[in-house]
Structures are given as C-alpha cells and as structure tokens.
C-alpha cells in the first residue's frame, strides 16, 4: 500500500473554461463558479476563466461588503495563481461599456476582443457558463 503522500493519481487533463457573466453579490453564480474553479484546479485540470458582461465586476478592485453582511470573496481571485490558474481573460467591450479599464481589476488579466475569446472557447474540451 502506498503512503498517503504518494497517492497522487495521474488522470486525464482536460481544458476547462469558465465563463463568468454575472456581477458578484446579486446572485450566487459568481461564488459558485469560483468554488468549481478551485475544485477543478485542485484536480490539476487545465483551467481558464473568462470575465464578460457583468462578470467583469467580480474582479473590480475595492469591494467592501461590511455594509451588506455578505462575505467579500474577491480576495480569493488573487489565490488562483497559487492554484496554477493563470489564464484569466476579460472581454474588452464589456469593460468599455462599463467605463472600466484594466487598472480597475484586482488580478492580472489579458483583455481580448470577442473574436479572440470565441477562438479560445472553440479550443476547449468543456465550457461552463455561470
């Protein structure tokens, strides 16, 4: 029998893309997506995230939820790097419509056009939309 620290199983690695389109606190989608992202990453899968439409608000700097009695989970996006989740993409048009720039975001991202995002999406094994 193997020791517990040796029982890492090498399984198939698939390309997972999570498409985040909802703002963070009005619905539970953003938080649920983040949890699934962490679990998927913990299983050593190839994970990428897209933030588009109101999803770009999930990674807006300066969130302070003290007044609404909900957990501020925005710091967790900064933990993704430690999970080797480094492919974070943001839809350029969504940012512009909302008067936001890359400087307003709390993690490093790649800002892409919809055509470029469509190509990336096309390249995935699994696409999950939240």
């Amino acid at each position, binding site marked *: 029998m193997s020791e517990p620290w040796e029982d890492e199983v090498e399984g198939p690695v698939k390309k997972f893309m999570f498409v985040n389109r909802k*703002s963070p606190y009005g619905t539970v989608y953003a938080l649920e997506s983040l949890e699934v992202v962490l679990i998927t990453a913990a299983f050593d899968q190839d994970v990428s995230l897209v933030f588009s*439409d109101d999803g770009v608000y999930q990674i807006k700097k*300066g969130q*302070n939820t003290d007044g*609404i009695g909900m957990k501020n989970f925005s710091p967790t996006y900064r933990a993704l790097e430690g999970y080797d989740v480094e492919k974070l993409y943001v839809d350029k048009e969504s940012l512009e*419509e*909302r*008067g936001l720039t890359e400087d307003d975001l709390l993690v490093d991202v790649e800002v892409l056009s919809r055509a470029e995002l469509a190509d990336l999406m096309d390249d995935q094994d699994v696409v999950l939309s939240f």
Partner: protein
Amino acid sequence: MAMLHTVNKSPFERNTLDSCISMAKSGSSILLIEDGIFGALKGTSATDKVSSAMSNVTFYVLGPDLNARGMTEEQLIDGIKVVDYEGFVDLTAEHENVQAWL
C-alpha cells in the same frame, strides 16, 4: 405624494431600469439597490438614460450595495444621492407607495 421605485437589476443585464424609467411619473423617486447600483455610475453605456431621466425623477443609490461592488460616491452621476439603510426606510415612509421592480 409620489411613488418610490426600487430597481435591483443591472441595467446591462435586464431592461428593468428602462421599464421603470419609462413608467416613473414626474416627481417620483428611483432608488437603485443591489445590482441596480450599476445604473448610477458615470461613464457607462447606461449613464445617458439615467442622466436624461433625472430632469423628472430623483435618483438615489444604496451606499452599502455601492461599496460592496467596489464603487464609491465619486463614481456616481452628479446629482444622485447616496442613502444608507435608514435612509431607505425614510424614503419608504416619505413616499405614498413603493414599487419594487424585479
């Protein structure tokens, strides 16, 4: 006395704010709460419709919902007033009735 409308949906995701504005009578108030606060911000594709409605309607935004989403008072369209939960209650009491747009 006038009506207080509340809108809790993002103007980028639903047409709730449009519907509300189109039916809000002159002199009434619109309070933006939860994801509705995104309608209160300067420099977005929704700014113009709120700005132009402000000649007839008074706009308020709920501060705690604004801050939760990483926004501050400086980012608001000029003339929109920030209220806290107590202010929300006051608005409710001051107006004749409330319509909560969903």
